[in-house]
């Protein structure tokens, strides 16, 4: 089917006129537009599944007796869909934009960006369709089986080569710091993905495989992967977005370029060692746990350097943050980045971890990062990018950007507060002893105590999903709007043309 569709596309374009040489005097943007569309489609789908999973915890009968709708299958669909589908497509789209603009060079060819985008989405579909029918490696955030993993390696190497080729064609002598973050994201994710997924399939025609790592080494490799997936997929790439779109939207250069370099190398080299904090109080050697804990605490320095750099860039432009919801998305994202990195360093400390681990506190922490930081910086970047990419004067509706902002912020806060409460209560109930030295509460008691928080969490998720739907509609209507009469040839939003609600 896929081959037939490709053949139709190729045959269709065979009769089109030859491309003109003046195409080379502009950037190659169509894959970026497709990437934004894919990203928003994945956001709506995967956040819907997220809400479903959340509802399942409060109302377990919502599986409708279908094996594919159980928590164990829907949960990786949600995580893969939001992290790789929504986040990954957003990273690919914005990196294609940033690498061309900051290099002042067009992409070297028109095939590899489409291969990367389509191939990446094929990987996401292969993974997600597998989870529904019960195919999984049972490694968190790396559930996809060997056939999908090998395909992703091919796509990812093409992505890396494409980025390097564009950078090699650059006309701007200095490589802007956002590119460093994007390149670290691509390179490190390749290393992590390959090492963690080395496995031997049962047979060439069978989906099941067994990892080559054994016992505690397997656990360590998995969490070296898992935490660096947070670090390089969900942080480094999105910091690349922050360092480009925030200054462009605010029309102010980054507060300190030197600080951005120091925080880049700090993050790159500290994060690599932090993964073992996921394995406190396990069979992992004690010194390795301590190493992970120490590096996690040290990480606070480069993390806050980036968050502070972003907020100080806005100093003097706070009136624009007040009036422009797009800039506010990015400002709040930087605040949540600062908050969740502080929380992460704190939770990595062994005695704190003894309370927080295996509880909903961890889930709350992840969502403070994923909703508050990753999703908000993405929406802020998209609202900056969409009008300039489609040559529209502004977004279709500034009011809807406002609505999206408040839905997203309210959803995140409801979610995170619910999980903080439930997590701490859970942790305390599990460690409360009676005078006789027996546990005071059964696991079931703690589960019953969680129910109100699970309902609240699902409500927060619904608010966030509603925001993503409003955002998708707004982007769709912007794309459908009549283009500007003449191409202004300008990328950055003109201060007087930045859409403001109530105008």
């Amino acid at each position, binding site marked *: 089917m896929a081959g037939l569709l490709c053949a139709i596309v190729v045959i269709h374009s065979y009769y089109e006129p030859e491309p003109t040489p003046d195409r080379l005097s502009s950037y190659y943007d169509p894959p970026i537009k497709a990437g934004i569309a894919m990203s928003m489609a994945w956001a709506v789908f995967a956040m819907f599944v997220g809400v479903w999973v959340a509802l399942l915890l409060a109302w377990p009968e919502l599986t409708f007796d279908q094996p594919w709708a159980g928590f164990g299958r829907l949960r990786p669909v949600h995580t893969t869909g939001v992290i790789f589908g929504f986040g990954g497509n957003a990273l690919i789209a914005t990196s294609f934009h940033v690498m061309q603009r900051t290099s002042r*060079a067009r992409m070297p060819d028109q095939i590899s960006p489409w291969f990367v985008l389509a191939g990446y989405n094929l990987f996401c579909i292969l993974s997600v369709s597998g989870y529904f029918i019960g195919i999984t490696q049972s490694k968190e955030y790396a559930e996809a089986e060997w056939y999908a993993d090998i395909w992703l390696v091919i796509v990812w190497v093409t992505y890396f080569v494409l980025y390097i080729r564009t950078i090699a064609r650059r006309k701007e002598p200095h490589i802007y710091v956002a590119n460093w973050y994007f390149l670290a994201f691509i390179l490190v994710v390749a290393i992590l993905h390959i090492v963690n997924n080395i496995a031997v399939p049962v047979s060439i025609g069978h989906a099941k495989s067994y990892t080559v790592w054994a016992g505690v080494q397997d656990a360590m490799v998995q969490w070296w992967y898992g935490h660096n997936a947070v670090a390089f997929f969900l942080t480094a790439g999105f910091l690349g977005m922050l360092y480009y779109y925030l200054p462009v939207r605010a029309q102010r*250069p980054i507060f300190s370029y030197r600080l951005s370099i*120091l925080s880049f190398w700090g993050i790159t080299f500290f994060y690599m060692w932090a993964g073992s904090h996921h394995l406190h109080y396990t069979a992992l050697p004690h010194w390795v746990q301590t190493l992970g804990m120490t590096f996690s605490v040290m990480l606070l320095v480069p993390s806050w350097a980036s968050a502070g750099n972003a907020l100080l860039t806005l100093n003097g432009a706070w009136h624009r943050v007040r009036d422009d919801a797009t800039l506010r998305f990015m400002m709040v994202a930087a605040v949540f980045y600062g908050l969740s990195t502080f929380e992460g360093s704190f939770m990595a400390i062994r005695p704190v971890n003894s309370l927080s681990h295996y509880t909903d506190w961890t889930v709350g922490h992840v969502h403070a990062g994923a909703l508050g930081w990753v999703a908000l910086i993405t929406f802020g970047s998209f609202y900056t990018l969409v009008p300039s990419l489609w040559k529209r004067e502004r977004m279709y509706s500034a009011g809807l950007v406002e609505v999206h902002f408040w839905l997203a912020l309210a959803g995140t806060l409801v979610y995170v507060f619910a999980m903080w409460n439930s997590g701490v209560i859970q942790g305390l109930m599990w460690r409360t002893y009676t005078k006789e030295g027996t546990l005071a509460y059964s696991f079931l008691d703690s589960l019953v105590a969680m129910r109100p928080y699970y309902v609240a969490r699902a409500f927060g998720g619904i608010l966030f999903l509603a925001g993503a739907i409003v955002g998708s509609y707004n982007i769709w209507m912007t794309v459908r709007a009549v283009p500007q009469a003449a191409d202004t040839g300008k990328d950055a939003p003109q201060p007087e043309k930045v859409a403001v609600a109530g105008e």
Partner: protein
Amino acid sequence: MEIDHNALVFFSKSWGLLYLGGFAVCVVVYTFWPSNKKRFVRAKESILDPVDKPWQ
């Protein structure tokens, strides 16, 4: 020489620390090297240039 657990622990606690320290020094020197300042200032101003065309 047999590479056992203790050998790896020794390596990471000695050379591992030195290489991170050495690397940190290199990064700080690069960041604060006086002649790099002009380039950094240009880089951060450059992304605000509104012209949306590749340089020929």
